[in-house]
């Protein structure tokens, strides 16, 4: 290796390097960071080497680091002289021949191509690769890289980290050379200060200022240290930086050493990073040989060397005083500052410690000047920061963004939104000592100050994205568990306080929380934050304090309702399906009972959990499917359909009376209490069922002439045959529930009268007030809101439609309307302002509608309804495009200028039905700003004594199972209110059934309900999907993995 002594030797090395980077023959570089090798790049490299040798090709094959898009590894760069550098992704060994075949014709396999690079700005030099490959996007057109600016990662994934000549080829060590020639350390120090470079380890202290302290300190020995003790779970920026470009670190430290007068550098790197350690060793060796380290550096008389020390992996050793202590061979415990390391550091000598990434920024600042650097980023924080973006986003990897980039850009642009389409709930920044930032605050610019204001920190740059599958209480518990075990134990608040906090959090996740725990945690968290000795302790409570601040309701759920919405806290759920069911049905139990051939027991299990089992068996939104762990094997168990089979087998058979008697036998003796229920929809019927079982005298009022609410009047016959519903209502009637029809609450019977006559009142009025859109032309004949339309259909009083109908909306009402229209022989077009996947309607229903001939126009919003002599003639729709993500995790539609006209004879508005709350005026019932009734989330009690409310009235238009869930919850709380006892669980049945998990996973695939052929069902109101056959239902029940059975006996709540 040539030793650089002067400019000519320097230039010679540079040319040698360039000849390797851009040789006269093709160059293939395999990404071999830890992320690459973890994805099999070692094998790819070996296969390439073998094949190249075998074919006798003249190809320059090298290793490189990671280009940042870790999820797409192994990445392989292919460069053919004169053409752009092409980055291939997810390359496996069997792609090798494809790549080499293409190479023979001077092309690349475009199917494997991720992006191309025509020119690259290494900051210290520019490389021109060539142009071509028009079909391959340029690197910064790939969503993951959009908005990124690579200063720190300028060389990663492009050069060979094991070859100093390639680093020198792209301007490496020139900054050092410049500094050594200029001999003006004060000036360079001043430039670093002016650049406003701040420490990237987390605290964000001005690097230039820190250097100045060291430069001004007088001692015969000074140290500069690189902190590469990266210990945050989910963060690996420093690892990849070192693995991809170790010389940037060495050059930065050498410059720092010269400026501050230090003669020795130390890199403190985690022993858990073997590849980074290896690359550093190679790089340090080459640096010494080349004369950029050691005696007489670059022939300029400067002496400086760097030692490599492997840390034993204590998180606290990232704290500078603890790191020094560890370097001195003592246990890694911090000590109070002052004295600061710049006064008294390693072995008592003045010392400066900077993070890997801080050092990486030095050479570019020296090369390009401070004003170039401060152009990027925000006012207070200049430059860029590398973040490791992980968690529930589609794209994971290292993202280098300018400071001040809003959090939403990370999640939605680089990350491309949530991984499974679930709404993103929060981002945890700064590793275990950081805080969680909720979705509402995603427009926060990412810089030190803004994150600090939200109670989080920049930290070293971890960014963990969480969706609604993450329980925030568990998140807080997890991070406190980490910091507690990493606490050094020196100071009281961190040592004992974190232990206490963990015990309390663990208790809450086990459902043993108390209401006073929250205030206590808050107080304890603040105390630890304000009094702990070092950064670890001071920031450790951030996860508690931010989750308490932003996700207080989740803590309350765990404590008051003993529920974990995300289904993470296992002690609070029987199984994932049970947890997701608004009725909290014991799904594994009925599946097992059915599997055991105990139909009557299975039916009892089902109906006692869910009083309308056949209706829900047909039209439930089945949130259980989404949580079913069987999805990890193949598809979710079709729980809804089994439950339908069980319900139908009894309800529609001659065993009906026998089973009704079995239920009636469970009825408690009369309590003498009277309850009025307003609304005979699913919520009211459910409440009535349970309240009657509990021995109360229940009267249900409804404005319609029959019971069933939306089930009867909004759901078309083809989805729910009314004969089925009638049987279910018959059971409720036989339980003794009385019905008063054609009576409107507030109009026909006053709330005060109910108050006077009944011991408790439950309000469960549905969303019968039609949605209104501010659209010109809605006054025309032929414009109908969806509910009156469906209601008229249900009552066999059809509305005049004409032959072409446009339906506006994307919910179930829109789809039901469209399918009804088709059955009436007219053409139906649904227009929806978002994309298909954003529709709130049940997916199967949308598919079925499409098969039946319903046409869909997505990304279209109604603009104006055009009339002719008072009749609808056409509708003008404006095309929308998708903008920012909103709180539902969907992109907000934005109207464009493009207008289309759709001729039609009538328009059905299926948008935003609401509850008519006029009845509650001046009644003492408080209405929230959202026009919904205010209730206690846990008891459903309203602001007026004796009055409870549930269903659409408090949640807005929802779905069947949610509505019934409210009814069930109301019954429990009304009973408790009336009897001052907790009796609800006493009426629930219990069964003895097999409690062993299946030894083998059933090989059967999911069975689906049998849909009639689309052409046939589009012509009839006959039920569109027939139930599973008994043997299919049996196979389906065998597919259950029995998540309700836990390893440890007795664990898990039994409901």
């Amino acid at each position, binding site marked *: 290796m040539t030793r650089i002594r002067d400019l000519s030797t320097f230039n010679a090395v540079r040319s040698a390097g360039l000849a390797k980077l851009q040789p006269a023959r093709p160059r293939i570089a395999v990404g071999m960071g830890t992320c690459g090798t973890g994805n099999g790049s070692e094998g790819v490299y070996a296969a390439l080497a073998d094949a190249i040798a075998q074919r006798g090709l003249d190809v320059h094959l090298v290793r490189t680091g990671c280009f940042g898009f870790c999820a797409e590894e192994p990445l392989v760069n292919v460069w053919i002289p004169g053409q752009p550098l092409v980055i291939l992704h997810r390359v496996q060994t069997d792609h090798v021949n494809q790549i080499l075949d293409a190479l023979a014709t001077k092309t690349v396999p475009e199917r494997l191509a991720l992006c191309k690079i025509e020119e690259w700005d290494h900051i210290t030099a520019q490389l021109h690769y060539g142009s071509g490959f028009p079909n391959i996007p340029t690197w910064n057109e790939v969503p993951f890289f959009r908005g990124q600016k690579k200063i720190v990662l300028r060389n990663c994934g492009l050069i060979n980290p094991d070859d100093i000549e390639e680093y020198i080829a792209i301007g490496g060590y020139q900054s050092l050379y410049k500094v050594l020639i200029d001999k003006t350390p004060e000036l360079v120090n001043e430039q670093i200060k002016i650049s406003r470079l701040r420490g990237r380890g987390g605290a964000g202290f001005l690097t230039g200022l820190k250097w100045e302290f060291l430069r001004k300190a007088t001692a015969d020995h000074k140290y500069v240290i690189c902190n590469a003790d990266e210990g945050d779970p989910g963060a690996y920026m420093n690892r990849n930086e070192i693995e991809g470009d170790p010389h940037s670190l060495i050059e930065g430290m050498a410059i720092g050493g010269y400026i501050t007068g230090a003669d020795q550098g130390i890199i403190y790197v985690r022993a858990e990073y073997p590849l980074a350690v290896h690359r550093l060793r190679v790089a340090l060796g080459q640096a010494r040989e080349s004369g950029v380290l050691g005696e007489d550096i670059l022939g300029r008389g400067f002496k400086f060397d760097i030692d490599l020390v492997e840390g034993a992996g204590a998180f606290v050793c990232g704290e500078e005083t603890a790191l020094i202590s560890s370097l001195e061979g003592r246990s890694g415990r911090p000590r109070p500052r*002052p004295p600061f390391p710049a006064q008294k550091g390693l072995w008592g000598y003045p010392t400066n410690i900077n993070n890997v990434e801080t050092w990486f920024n030095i050479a570019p600042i020296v090369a390009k000047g401070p004003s170039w650097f401060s152009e990027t980023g925000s006012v207070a924080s200049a430059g860029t920061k590398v973040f490791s973006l992980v968690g529930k986003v589609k794209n994971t990897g290292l993202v280098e963004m300018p400071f001040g980039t809003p959090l939403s850009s990370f999640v939605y642009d680089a990350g491309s939104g949530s991984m499974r389409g679930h709404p993103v709930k929060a981002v945890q920044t700064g590793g275990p000592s950081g805080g969680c930032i909720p979705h509402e605050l995603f427009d926060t610019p990412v810089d030190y100050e803004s994150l600090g204001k939200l109670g989080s920190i920049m930290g070293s740059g971890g960014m963990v994205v969480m969706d609604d599958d993450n329980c925030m209480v568990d998140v807080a518990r997890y991070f406190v568990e980490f910091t507690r*075990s990493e606490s050094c*134990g*020196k100071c*009281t608040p961190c*040592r004992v306080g974190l232990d206490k906090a963990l015990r309390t959090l663990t208790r809450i996740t086990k459902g043993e929380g108390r209401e006073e725990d929250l205030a206590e945690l808050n107080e304890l968290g603040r*105390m630890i934050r*304000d*009094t702990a*000795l070092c950064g670890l302790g001071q920031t450790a409570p951030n996860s508690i304090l931010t989750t308490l601040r932003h996700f207080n309701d989740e803590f309350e759920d765990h404590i008051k309702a003993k529920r974990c919405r995300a289904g993470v806290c296992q002690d609070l759920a029987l199984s994932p399906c049970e947890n997701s069911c608004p009725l909290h049905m014991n799904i594994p139990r009925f599946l097992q009972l059915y599997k055991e051939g105990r139909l009557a027991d299975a039916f009892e299990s089902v109906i006692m959990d869910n009083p309308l089992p056949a209706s829900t068996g047909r039209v439930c939104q089945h949130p259980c499917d989404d949580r079913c762990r069987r999805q990890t094997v193949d598809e979710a168990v079709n729980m809804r359909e089994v439950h339908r089979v069980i319900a139908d087998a009894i309800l529609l058979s001659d065993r009906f009376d026998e089973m009704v008697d079995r239920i009636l036998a469970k009825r408690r003796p009369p309590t003498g209490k009277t309850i009025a229920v307003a609304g005979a929809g699913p919520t009211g019927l459910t409440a009535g069922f349970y309240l009657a079982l509990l021995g109360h005298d229940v009267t249900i009022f409804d404005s319609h002439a029959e019971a069933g609410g939306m089930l009867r009047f909004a759901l078309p016959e083809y989805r729910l045959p009314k004969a089925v519903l009638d049987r279910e209502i018959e059971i409720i009637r036989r339980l003794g529930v009385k019905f008063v029809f054609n009576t409107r609450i507030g109009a026909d019977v006053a709330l005060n009268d109910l108050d006077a006559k009944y011991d408790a009142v439950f309000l469960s009025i549905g969303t019968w007030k039609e949605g209104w859109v501010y659209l010109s032309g809605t006054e025309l004949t032929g414009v109908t809101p969806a509910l009156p339309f469906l209601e008229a259909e249900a009552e066999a009083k059809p509305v005049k439609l004409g032959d072409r109908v446009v339906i506006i909306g994307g919910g179930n009402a829109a789809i039901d309307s469209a399918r009804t229209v088709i059955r009436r022989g007219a053409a139906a077009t649904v227009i929806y302002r978002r994309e298909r996947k954003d529709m709130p309607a049940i997916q199967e229903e949308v598919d079925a509608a499409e098969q039946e001939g319903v046409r869909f126009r997505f990304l279209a919003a109604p603009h104006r309804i055009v009339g002719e002599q008072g009749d609808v003639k056409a509708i003008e729709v404006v095309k929308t495009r998708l903008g920012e993500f909103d709180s539902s995790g969907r992109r907000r539609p934005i109207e464009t200028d493009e207008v289309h006209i759709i001729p039609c004879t009538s328009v059905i508005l299926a948008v935003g039905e609401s509850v008519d709350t006029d009845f509650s005026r001046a009644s003492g019932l408080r209405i929230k700003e959202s026009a919904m009734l205010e209730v206690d989330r846990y008891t459903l009690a309203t602001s007026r004594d004796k009055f409870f409310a549930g269903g659409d009235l408090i949640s807005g238009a929802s779905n069947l199972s949610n509505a019934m869930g409210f009814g069930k919850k109301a019954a429990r709380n009304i009973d408790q209110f009336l009897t001052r006892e907790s009796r609800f669980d006493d009426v629930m049945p219990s069964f003895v059934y097999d409690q062993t998990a299946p030894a083998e996973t059933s090989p059967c695939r999911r069975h689906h309900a049998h849909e009639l052929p689309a052409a046939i069902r589009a012509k009839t109101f006959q039920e569109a999907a027939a139930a599973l056959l008994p043997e299919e239902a049996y196979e389906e029940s065998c597919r259950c993995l029995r998540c309700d059975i836990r390893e440890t006996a007795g664990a898990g709540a039994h409901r």
Partner: protein
Amino acid sequence: MSQQVSVRIDGELCTAAEGQTIYEVAQANGRSIPALCHMEGLSSAGACRLCLVEVAGIGRLLPACTTPVNTGMSVTTESENLAHHRVMALELLFVERNHICSVCVSNGHCELQALAQKLGVTHVRYPYNYPRLSVDTSHPRFVLDHNRCILCSRCVRVCDEIEGAHVWDIAARGINSMLVSDLDRPWGESENCTSCGKCVQACPTGALVEKGRAVEEMTKRNVVVTTLAAKRDAHP
């Protein structure tokens, strides 16, 4: 002669020598700041966090035992906030291990107990950990009772800095931290221990005590340590 600086402590103007800590200046001016890990004559650890004070213009609390005074500094040693934090820190110490005063040889002579009484700790809001901890009676003259240890590390420092034997150190980390002699051998088997007893005299609680003492009988004479340290400073 070091330079003189003027500082305000709880509003009172005090003169101090440059390099003195807030704790020392407050002490010299008749104000006692609560502390458990600090001991005159030993280096400061800043570990117990009881001596935290408020300094005007600085957003966070500073440990009085390690923070040097500056000219113009205005220090508040007592406030509602500080009292709150101090009480909590004491409570945390009480729940961490088994501090059962009524059967403790140091009852009535314990710095932890005295401080709790002074700061009005009447109850503890957290559940006790009740760890099962051992008592090391292997030393012929002394006893180490982990149940009473608050990990203040005074013994570690006195043995290292005054006696020069460095018998004691703290092993493990976090809530599992434990005082060990030599490399975690029974105290009686320690090869470095000179049996000087300075650690016993320096210990603020009943964790390091002399054998043969019954309940309430163990009084500590830490003046022995401070006198030695002062004499050593006078004849370096």
